């Protein structure tokens, strides 16, 4: 936000507040118990602080904040309003006035404010009988000046320092998370830089440099992990919504449901959590709406009338597993295949090649089901294509297991953090691009002889499975590669529930990338999950393969 447009208004209104403060101070010296004058003084300092914080004038914030705290002590009866307090407040008024003058003339402030803040924080009226020790004084003020969440016992002076530094940054817990984002950004830039050092090290062939870089690399990994840990939030930050939505859907569909939640204490990255709400809501709604049978049907099947939907979160090293399990009617792989063939999404021949697991994944293909035609079979797929895409964007995977008659479980496996990913870098024509390694099953260098032509398709054999070949160049609208030595580099990925070999011009190896958003307008581009800068400054896009195919 461009704040310069508010500067004039800020200056004029701040000066008004300063005038009010000065007037009230003088009035209070006449009648020190005047409640409304005390309140007005407190308000004046408080408003000034808020406005200055918005303009990011840290010095003014520090001074106004100390005045506010001092007045809070007066207001709360911890400190009598005396000549000493009046002097300090008027000194503050003069100080802010001078700072505003600097702001107006756009020159850096030369006035130190720390000394003033410290004096106010530790101020005790000299002649008072019940004088407190100076270092206890600020604690005596029940103003809860530190953010409640962050408050922990600390020596007063230290607390005061902490308060000042956070104040200069905006001073709130929410702003602190911005600071964290910034830290993560910096960590990401460091990772990018490390890559650069790595490639210089390779060019120079210096063992000493390589050792240093590899040590730096370890330290960076540790730094990244620590920074990321601070961003973790317990799953319960979003779980209450699920409870509500399950209850609502159950009520609407006239079903009785027990909803169980385990692992609410498991921490996930703030950004991941935010992106999980919609996909999980979809999965849960599908489970209740289409998975769980109605009471009569359940009783006929010998099940308790009340359906069970379980949401469990667990952590497996650096990945989070989230499972939604229901004890409903389950999904029949064969019916899924038939439905997909009927809709023309796959050919009957393709259908025969699918394993039961792959057949269940058909529900994630766009077009498999729409909200309009909800049947027992395809109903489970409502919105699943969007869910799958959202999970893939987070660098996660989605798996479906189902036992007809017994129920279905959908498991999301997500990385603990998202900002730094491992990606396979490939060359297609003039363009370098990256594919997150979680989307890459393996890389293969295929000899032309190994390619079989089946109808219009080119296939190759991998682990006794016939896998179709696609050209990533073609998918991206680039000229096709030529492969004069007869070797086709490719990576194997999964699309529409089955494996595909994506041919590229060259495989450039795995890299650690710091993912950045592309912003408007490229954010709207299908098949692109973000971008990253390589060690040499080159920029690549990060592809979302499942969205591309």
């Amino acid at each position, binding site marked *: 936000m461009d704040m310069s447009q508010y500067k004039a208004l800020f200056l004029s209104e701040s000066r008004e507040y300063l005038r009010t403060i000065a007037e009230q101070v003088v009035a209070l010296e006449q009648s020190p118990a005047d409640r409304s004058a005390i309140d007005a003084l407190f*308000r004046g300092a408080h408003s000034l602080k808020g406005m200055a914080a918005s303009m990011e004038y840290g010095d003014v914030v520090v001074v106004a904040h100390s005045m506010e705290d001092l007045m809070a002590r007066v207001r709360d009866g911890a400190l009598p309003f005396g000549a000493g307090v009046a002097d300090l407040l008027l000194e503050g008024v003069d100080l802010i006035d001078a700072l505003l003058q600097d702001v107006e003339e756009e020159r850096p402030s030369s006035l130190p404010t720390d000394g003033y803040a410290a004096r106010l924080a530790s101020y005790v009226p000299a002649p008072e009988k019940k004088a407190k020790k100076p270092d206890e004084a600020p604690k005596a003020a029940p103003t809860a000046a530190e953010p409640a969440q962050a408050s922990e016992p600390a020596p007063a002076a230290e607390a005061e320092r902490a308060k000042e530094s956070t104040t200069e940054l905006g001073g709130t817990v929410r*702003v602190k998370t911005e600071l964290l984002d910034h830290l993560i950004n910096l960590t990401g830039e460091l990772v990018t830089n490390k890559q650069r050092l790595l490639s210089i090290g390779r060019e120079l062939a210096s063992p000493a440099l390589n050792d240093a870089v590899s040590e730096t690399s370890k330290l960076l990994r540790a730094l990244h992990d620590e920074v990321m840990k601070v961003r973790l939030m317990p799953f319960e930050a979003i779980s209450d919504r699920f409870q509500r939505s399950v209850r609502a859907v159950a009520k609407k569909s006239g079903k009785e449901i027990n909803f169980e939640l385990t692992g609410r204490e498991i921490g996930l990255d703030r950004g991941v959590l935010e992106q999980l709400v919609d996909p999980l809501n979809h999965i849960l709604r599908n489970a209740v709406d289409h998975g769980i049978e109605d009471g009569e049907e359940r009783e006929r099947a010998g099940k308790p009338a009340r359906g069970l939907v379980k949401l469990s979160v667990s952590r497996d090293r650096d990945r989070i597993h989230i499972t939604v399990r229901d004890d409903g009617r389950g999904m029949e792989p064969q019916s899924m295949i038939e439905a997909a063939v009927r809709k023309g999404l796959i050919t009957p021949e393709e259908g025969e090649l699918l394993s039961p697991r792959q057949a269940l994944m058909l529900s994630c293909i766009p077009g498999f089901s729409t909200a309009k035609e909800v049947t027992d079979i395809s109903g489970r797929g409502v919105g699943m294509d969007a869910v799958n895409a959202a999970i893939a964007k987070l660098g996660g995977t989605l798996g479906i297991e189902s036992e007809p008659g017994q129920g279905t479980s959908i498991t999301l496996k997500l990385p603990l953090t998202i900002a730094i990913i491992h990606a396979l870098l490939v060359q297609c024509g003039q363009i370098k691009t990256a594919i997150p390694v979680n989307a890459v099953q393996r890389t293969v260098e295929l000899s032309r002889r190994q390619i079989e032509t089946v109808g219009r398709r080119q296939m190759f054999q991998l682990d006794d499975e016939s896998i179709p070949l696609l050209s990533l160049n073609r998918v991206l609208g680039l000229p096709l590669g030529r492969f004069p030595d007869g070797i086709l580099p490719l990576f194997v990925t999964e699309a529409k529930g089955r494996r595909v070999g994506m041919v590229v011009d060259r495989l450039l190896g795995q890299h650690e990338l710091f993912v950045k958003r592309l912003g408007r307008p490229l954010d709207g581009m299908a098949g692109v999950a973000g971008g990253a800068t390589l060690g040499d400054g080159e920029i690549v896009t990060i592809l979302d393969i499942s969205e591309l195919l």
Partner: protein
Amino acid sequence: MAIKVMIVDDSLFMRKMLRDILTEEGYEICAEASDGDEAVARYRESLPDLVTMDIVMPNKGGIEALQEIMAYDAAARVVMCSAIGQEALTTAATEAGAKAFILKPFNPELVTRVLREVVQG
């Protein structure tokens, strides 16, 4: 139709900033008030969809105004706004029916996100 918002803050500067943020986001600013008394009166006149309420204000503070507005309209959607130092009042505000709490200084993205969440219930 645009969502109608009433902005309550004793500082003109803050009101203007918030007005600009919200207008940019497509909200319609249907009323502004600079203290609690005015807020209650304006609320009755303009029945906004959403209220942003400063806490520390002259005459009548934000918490009191919130209570009066909630008594008048139990469905009122009021979001409290305050600079650091008033977090202790969060609980009181939530108990009185506030839908959310925004800390000043205003971060446009945060403000719009919180308001969107409140609007969407």
